[in-house]
């Protein structure tokens, strides 16, 4: 259950719209059910009052929308950012991908967002969801007794392993500021590293073979903001819409992971949006873990203007040979 209420955010958005600070509001719009929230640009107070929501299903990271939407909108856009979203926000600013002056950012405290797939696996036929202190009270279309699902059992992976409750960017903060969390997010990577090369290959081959090349991971990724991605540029020579060989199947995701290495903030959108539930975040997290180990702890998006270790040089940098040998022959 979120500590900040919908009404608090709504009142603030309406106030900022009416005093002219902003012209429009990038927020979450209610859906057909209680969980299918859609990112939406609200233009008026009436529209906000009717459709704006803030609940445990506001998982979408809005930062990437700023790249496209601030170009096309007159005046300022109000955007709500959860702590993890603010890292993407800063990273995009570091890369000069949108104009900071066109954005009014409200940092919103977040208690973690729900993974709808997990919730649906727990309860079939959801007809309504009510957030209570005990958890999500879910009623069904089969007229069963309502089920109470503990939030911690259905959180998104990225929220289970939340890396920060602290906002690293905002114009205004709503709710209490949190702390950076010493999360267990690298445990799964460590487990993969502990596998033999063959086991690891089998793991990824199984996962990546599920890919349907819908590009949702890329299109949702705040680090993927190329105007014309090589993978859909017919002139690039590597445009692919389907794997011709199993080699290609693996390469799409690995190339993408390389491309966002050092820029990925570990926002987790790639895994959230994957219709095939491929744990794509593990590829990116492996890069982050390696960067941390080789060059010292680094969190992309922590500050605007940071130089990522992979594009920076210091005298303390590891030699390539040391990188290769740092975990023995299995590295």
């Amino acid at each position, binding site marked *: 259950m979120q500590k900040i209420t919908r009404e608090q955010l709504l009142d603030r958005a309406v106030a900022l719209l009416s005093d002219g600070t902003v012209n429009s509001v990038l927020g979450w719009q209610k859906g057909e059910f209680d969980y299918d929230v859609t990112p939406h640009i609200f233009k008026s107070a009436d529209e906000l009052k009717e459709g704006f929501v803030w609940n445990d299903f506001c998982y979408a990271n809005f930062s990437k929308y700023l790249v496209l939407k601030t170009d096309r909108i007159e005046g300022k856009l109000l955007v709500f950012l959860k702590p993890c979203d603010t890292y993407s926000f800063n990273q995009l600013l570091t890369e000069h991908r949108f104009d900071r002056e066109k954005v009014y950012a409200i940092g919103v405290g977040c208690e973690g967002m729900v993974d709808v797939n997990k919730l649906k696996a727990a309860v079939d036929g959801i007809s309504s969801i009510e957030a209570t202190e005990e958890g999500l009270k879910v009623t069904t*279309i089969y007229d069963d007794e309502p089920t109470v699902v503990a939030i911690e059992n259905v959180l998104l992976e990225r929220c289970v392993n939340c890396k920060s409750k602290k906002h690293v960017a905002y114009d205004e903060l709503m709710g209490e500021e949190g702390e950076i969390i010493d999360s267990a997010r690298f445990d799964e990577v460590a487990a993969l590293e502990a596998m033999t090369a063959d086991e690891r290959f089998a793991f990824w081959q199984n996962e990546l073979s599920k890919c349907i090349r819908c590009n*949702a991971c890329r299109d949702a990724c705040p680090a993927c903001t190329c105007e014309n991605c090589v993978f859909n540029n017919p002139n690039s020579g590597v445009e692919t819409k389907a794997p011709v060989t199993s080699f290609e199947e693996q390469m799409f995701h690995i190339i993408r992971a390389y491309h966002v290495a050092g820029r990925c903030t570990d926002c987790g959108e790639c895994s959230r949006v994957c219709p095939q539930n491929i744990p794509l975040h593990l590829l990116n997290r492996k890069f982050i873990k390696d960067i941390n180990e080789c060059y010292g702890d680094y969190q992309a998006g922590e500050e605007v203007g940071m130089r990522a270790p992979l594009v920076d040089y210091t005298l303390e940098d590891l030699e390539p040979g040391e990188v290769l040998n740092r975990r023995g022959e299995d590295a």
Partner: protein
Amino acid sequence: MRKCSLEKINLVFAEIAKAYTLYLPTDQNDSSAKFTKWEEGSVWSNALNTVRSPKDFFFPQAEDLMEFKVEGKNIDITDIRQESEDFVIFGVRACDVKSFEILDRVFLVDPVDSFYASRREHGIIVSLACTKPSETCFCTTFGIDCTEPAGDVSIWKTETELYWQANTEKGEKLLSYVDSLTEDANTKAVDEQKEKTSVVMKKLPLANLTTDGFGAGKTMELFNNEAWDELSQTCLGCGTCTFVCPTCQCYDIKDFDTGNGVIRYRCWDSCMYSEFTKMAHGNNRLTQKERFRQRFMHKLVYYPENNDGLYSCVGCGRCLAKCPISMNIAKVMKKIGGEK
């Protein structure tokens, strides 16, 4: 109508698998279900439906069409087509069975797509009636009765029994292989089940979704509807909706140089992609709004116009469950069409 005890189900599968390659939904480690090839030990999933639709069986994500050998100025074309072998898809829901009819009207009209036709002719569909629809289901909007699925054989699963009814010659033949495992049955249990399911169907959140306002002849009115801007404004332009959709059938044809000849292959394509209509000298759909509009206009207006009023949506709900931003055909229909 025939029936067999659910306790015998693995014997039934084994018997069918002797005569055909058998595919059925099985649970995956991420709590989703997927059609997989039956083998000893396979467990039939209880899930309502698979994440990927069974269109893959007839229209796979990628398939090789032909091969070329290029030597100097000369080209040699090799026809690599193979006639499909007989196979059974077991446990297809009514909505997905309907999707095959929609695909047929694309691939089996003149000139017939021989790749699709071969698989379609050799595929035997065993459909499964629904008992526990999901909140995302809206098959009734498109006139589909989930308790009366079509297909070569229809089956109804109760707590203890499986009821079978052959609808076609192919289906009769399939049933003959499991004759000794099944017995004659009356329709009482099935009728009761249908009754119970119909009650749930009426209570579904999308039960009132209607196609009124869509269909043939609505092109100009709906194309110019102002709501497309708003509906499409946060669309990411990914292809998830099109690829999980059982009726989306757009494809691309591409060449792949293996270094030892060229393979021309076909793969799924999506009207949501920015380069879908891009030509050497321009693109007639430059914005995501135009691409987004195309997808829904095709399903709700263009396809019915060309196909006797049949809509190109079966209400399976996959796009509702999988769109990264939860924008989908139900929201589009409500916004620009309306509700009963």
